[in-house]
């Protein structure tokens, strides 16, 4: 990502943000700029969703050395930086959950460039299949990931309508502009379960605090239900925990694939070695989450 200061032929000056691909041998996650551009164009037309406006796209990598997306430049630092700088967390939690709920309110027909699965079951089974494949993809057997994949399939929750999901929705991807926050970095967005962004946020913020959902989880989830109209049977601490694990599949796939490539002498780079830390942090967090959920499920079954 780069800031671009332009002077047009008529002398007008403008600042844009350019997004491109990192060099393939050092990239730790893969993404598709064509799909991201089509999505950004559609998102710019959705009422109630705060995103920087999509401006131009250059699909020819010979011009800028990479496919390049140009977007509105929004003045302001990230919400993560603001929180690190002491922004009030309790007040921020409500504004943040409103952003998450706004994304969860976008129906598949509003973003036609994204593939819409035939049904919720088809979609979730597809994610579960990815976990199954992921758990078998590394050159070395990964028993924690195998257990998580099997557990997720066993504890599949009740369905909700399919909606837009950002798939990397965390404070670092929110620009805290004075004229309103904007959600950025839509490269992993897809149509999926509306609880996935909630869960992903919890997983991510567990590693990169503060975690706004943990200030008052019941209040956090209640506001999400109020904003989306979803019921407590579908959005509660147990499903929140389930989607905390499930939603990270794309991130974990990228990390494990990079690590596996290094093990096969196909890729190199200090970030890949460093990111093995992230894999083990995820394993620890997810294992602990599954244990807490099993205890909660057992208590609920006993009470019933």
């Amino acid at each position, binding site marked *: 990502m780069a800031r671009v200061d332009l002077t047009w032929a008529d002398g007008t000056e403008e600042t844009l943000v350019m997004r491109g691909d990192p060099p393939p041998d050092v990239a730790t996650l893969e993404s598709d700029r064509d799909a991201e551009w089509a999505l950004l164009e559609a998102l710019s037309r959705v009422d109630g969703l705060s995103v920087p406006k999509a401006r131009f796209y250059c699909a020819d990598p010979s011009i800028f050395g990479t496919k390049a997306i140009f977007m509105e430049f929004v003045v302001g630092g990230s919400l993560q930086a603001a929180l*690190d700088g002491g922004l009030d967390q309790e007040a921020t939690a409500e504004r943040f959950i409103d952003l998450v709920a706004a994304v969860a309110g976008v129906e598949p027909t509003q973003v036609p460039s994204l593939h819409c699965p035939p049904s919720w079951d088809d979609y979730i089974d597809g994610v579960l299949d990815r976990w199954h494949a992921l*758990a078998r993809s590394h050159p*070395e*057997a*990964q*028993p*924690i990931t*195998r*257990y998580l994949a*099997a*557990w997720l399939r*066993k504890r599949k929750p009740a369905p909700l309508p399919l909606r837009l999901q950002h798939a990397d929705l965390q404070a670092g991807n929110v620009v805290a502009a004075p004229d309103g926050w904007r959600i950025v970095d839509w490269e992993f967005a897809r149509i999926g379960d509306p609880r996935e962004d909630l869960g992903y946020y919890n997983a991510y913020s567990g*590693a*990169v605090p503060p975690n706004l959902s943990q200030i008052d989880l019941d209040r956090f989830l209640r506001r999400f239900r109020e904003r989306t109209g979803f019921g407590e049977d579908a959005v509660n601490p147990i499903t929140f925990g389930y989607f905390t694990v499930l939603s990270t599949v794309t991130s974990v796939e990228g990390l494990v694939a990079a690590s596996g490539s290094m093990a096969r002498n196909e890729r190199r780079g*200090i*970030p890949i*070695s*460093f990111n*093995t*830390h992230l894999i*083990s*942090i995820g*394993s*620890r967090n997810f*294992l602990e989450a599954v*244990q807490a959920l099993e205890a909660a499920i057992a208590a609920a079954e006993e009470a019933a």
Partner: protein
Amino acid sequence: MITRPTTQQVLEDCAREVRETLMPALTDPKLRVTLEMLEQVLAQCALRAGHEMAWMAEEIAAIEPYVQQVVATVAAAPSAAADALTALRSGRTDSLHLEDRSHEYHLASEALSCALEASLAAGNQALTAAGVTLLERRRDRETDLRPNFFFPGRA
């Protein structure tokens, strides 16, 4: 072969050099992030060099009887767990070369994976809990390998 200072000591000193000498001299934030990663990678390699052979042997020794119990209780042959147990037993080695011990560890990990999947599918809570205890041991080792973890760029 000179074994003192140990590999762990050498790598720990490399990490210290990165932390105390190189990082303070750097002003480029991108290079600093790379060095912060490098310092943590070196610190982890130091710990692994000191302990990973022993830790793998300990885990393998604990996994085999668990998988045997699962095979005897809920996953009699033919089953993935039984096949993985057979592979583990035929792949046991006295070699202390890292590549050989890593392969044996992989076979044990595969057997543990299959046994846990079989326990979960059978709804056997005791066997599942016993398998999860082995996972917790691995999780704790991995935590030990991140003694001073922080996200680069946010120190």
